[in-house]
């Protein structure tokens, strides 16, 4: 029954079915007063709050501050991760030297770094950026390393037959072969960085940023602001994810369409 009803919805808007149902449920809960808790505000109230925060400029300022941190942290973390991952992947002795330490460090929960980071960098932007960089660093290192190690030896042999120099081998065989894995790492890094941005803003003294917006809303029981903040975080995360997917598809056109079987 339900499945058939779902089939009747045009394909492009099927993804909206669940959110719309939730929104209806939310509205119904207030309309028939299933609860009178002040923690439940109406969708309309959230909408009004969103409009006022957006037109007043607070939302844009917060978004700008968060995105700036996110991108700086991601840039630092991903660059360092690419370099370190490539070093580990290309040189056996560097893997023996750094590998065990790295694999130990990566087991530490990201949030366990917070006390250390706040001691070293204080609680301002440098600390937040360091945390974001660290969050994006690990997935980029791991995927770059594994991508490079997975270079097919058969193609390296072709490079030998064609007399490629070491530099040519690196840029024309190893890096292209590792590119899908490297993209996966960067994609994960992007997601982790955004999660870490919110974590950093929320856990380290609030400054301007979406995290600050959330903390502010929580402290004043402004549920409309909290909910708007959550929606904003989700929307930005989704936008970043989509952007990454588009770039990835363009750059890796040679792989053809990957089959979505499951």
């Amino acid at each position, binding site marked *: 029954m339900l499945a058939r009803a779902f089939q009747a919805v045009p394909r492009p808007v099927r993804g909206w079915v669940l959110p719309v149902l939730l929104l209806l449920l939310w509205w119904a809960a207030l309309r028939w007063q299933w609860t009178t808790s002040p923690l439940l505000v109406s969708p309309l109230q959230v909408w009004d709050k969103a409009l006022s925060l957006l037109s007043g400029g607070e939302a844009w300022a917060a978004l700008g501050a968060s995105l700036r941190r996110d991108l700086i942290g991601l840039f630092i973390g991903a660059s360092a991760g690419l370099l370190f991952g490539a070093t580990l992947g290309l040189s056996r002795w560097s893997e023996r030297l750094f590998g065990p330490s790295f694999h130990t460090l990566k087991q530490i929960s990201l949030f366990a770094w917070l006390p250390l980071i706040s001691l070293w960098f204080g609680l301002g932007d440098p600390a937040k950026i360091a945390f974001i960089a660290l969050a994006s660093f690990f997935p980029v290192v791991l995927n770059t390393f594994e991508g490079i190690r997975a270079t097919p030896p058969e193609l390296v042999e072709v490079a030998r037959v*064609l*007399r490629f120099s070491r530099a040519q081998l690196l840029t*024309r*065989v190893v890096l292209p072969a590792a590119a899908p894995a490297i993209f996966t790492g960067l994609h994960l890094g992007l997601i982790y960085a955004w999660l870490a941005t919110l974590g950093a803003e929320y856990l380290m003294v609030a400054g301007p940023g979406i995290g600050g917006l959330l903390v502010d809303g929580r402290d004043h029981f402004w549920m409309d602001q909290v909910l708007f903040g959550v929606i904003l975080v989700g929307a930005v995360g989704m936008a970043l994810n989509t952007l990454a997917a588009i770039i990835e598809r363009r750059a890796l056109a*040679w792989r053809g369409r990957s089959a979505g079987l499951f």
Partner: protein
Amino acid sequence: MSRGGHIRIEHLNKQFVVDGAPLPVLRELSLEVAPGEFVAIVGASGCGKSTLLRLVAGLEREHDGTLQHDGAPITGTSLARGLVFQEHRLFPWLTVEANVRSALLNSGVPRSEQAKLVQRHIDLVGLQGFEKAWPHQLSGGMAQRVAIARALVNRPQVLLLDEPFGALDAMTRARLQQELQHIWRSEGITMILVTHDVDEALFLGDRVVVMEPRPGRIRRVLHVDLHHPRDRVSAVFTDLKQEVLAELGELAEAA
């Protein structure tokens, strides 16, 4: 055409080390291939025929004995010796055109002439119209043609073929054998083909070298004095085939 391509192998010995113990792969192998000659090497799997080809290519290094190309010892790979593997081994991130062109990277051919040379070899293997295709869009036979074009574009003196048609269906295989033969006759390149297909060896080779395994050595060399293109069902051809199969069959019984 006297453009070199003379391969000389004398008292060649090669061993691998497996679990700390030496494993002889080739023993006292001697073979001379004249410029422009087509030599086909047949043998059961494990007889070291692929290792022999890899040694001639310069992919395997350590060995005892003489291994020369036009009088110079083979110490590594060279653009004067092209190699086609059983799998096409195209770079999946390059188009057909760019794959062929990648072989010219260190050839010294000026950039301005590369495009023409690449096109000529794509035409030679009958793939005009597929220049911009990705390898994943090609059939196995087409991909192997590109691999042949990539190996030929440098105008090597020697073309080494390691079971190049082994993974293809019978019809595609027969067609590519004919095309390879055309290329061999028009380009005058020395070719050494390793195969387990006796029919293929007799269809293409001036000489057919039968190898026996453990350790790999030459059992017999047959001259195939038949005009091209050869008729696979002629009496002489089938007699020769029986002869080679008998050699291989005896080996199978002995083993």
